[in-house]
């Protein structure tokens, strides 16, 4: 892992949590979706907060794609879990939601658990036979 890869993981965390907070702000302004007419949720795409939130989530998605191109899924997801802490902070200070001590403890446990995983290897090494097949496949695609 080099600095560039850590920055990609940081971008996944930040853009994801900021995007979620902006979506919540937009959906608060839009109002509750009627369970009998769930397709009305599409009209929320006209809300500016939702649009900016979607832009952040697009940046999140680009960073996420980059991370998945060099690391395992079961590594990337926990490695970016500090985003949960950011989401809770946004909920508490930006949206003025009530975050109980138990929820804070939950967020802390999630962060500890997922932070733990970043100390391990980020990718599963393929078996020798699989590695040969993959190399042959890549050569075939290039040709």
């Amino acid at each position: 892992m080099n600095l560039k890869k850590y920055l990609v993981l940081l971008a996944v965390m930040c853009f994801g949590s900021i995007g979620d907070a902006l979506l919540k702000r937009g959906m608060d302004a839009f109002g509750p979706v009627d369970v009998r007419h769930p397709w009305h949720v599409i009209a929320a795409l006209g809300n500016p907060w939702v649009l900016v939130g979607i832009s952040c989530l697009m940046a999140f998605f680009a960073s996420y794609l980059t991370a998945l191109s060099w690391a395992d899924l079961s590594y990337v997801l926990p490695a970016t879990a500090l985003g949960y802490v950011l989401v809770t902070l946004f909920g508490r200070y930006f949206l003025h939601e009530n975050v109980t001590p138990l929820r804070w403890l939950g967020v802390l446990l999630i962060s500890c658990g997922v932070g733990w995983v970043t100390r391990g290897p980020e990718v599963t090494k393929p078996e020798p036979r699989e590695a040969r097949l993959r190399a042959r496949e890549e050569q075939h695609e290039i040709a």
Partner: protein
Amino acid sequence: MKSLELWAAIFMIVFASSGGDVLLSSAMKRIGDLNELRAGRGTLAVVGRVFSEKRFLLALCCFSVGFFSLLTALSWGELSLVAPASASMTFVASAIMAKIFLKEDVDHRRWIAAVLVCVGVALLK
């Protein structure tokens, strides 16, 4: 809004997102390191290569379902519950699916992380 409906929307997010995650991871493994690909052939070639991958397009469909479920859940519940609960359970479901479908080496370190996340999610309710 009733709690049951909120949790149904959250489970819909988890189901669609974890399926999308596995498809996306599989697609990106087939494509290879995006940084190396961009350095060798340029950004447009990377975009073309990514969008020509069928698994990537299927993953996008799954994420679309997950996204509209997220919007619905956010209109019913608080962000500090919906976002961590759905994302954490997606993480656990994705770890299990990564082990089964992607044959990833989900070692003791990753499983311990999964257990801690589960307890954390229980406390978020």
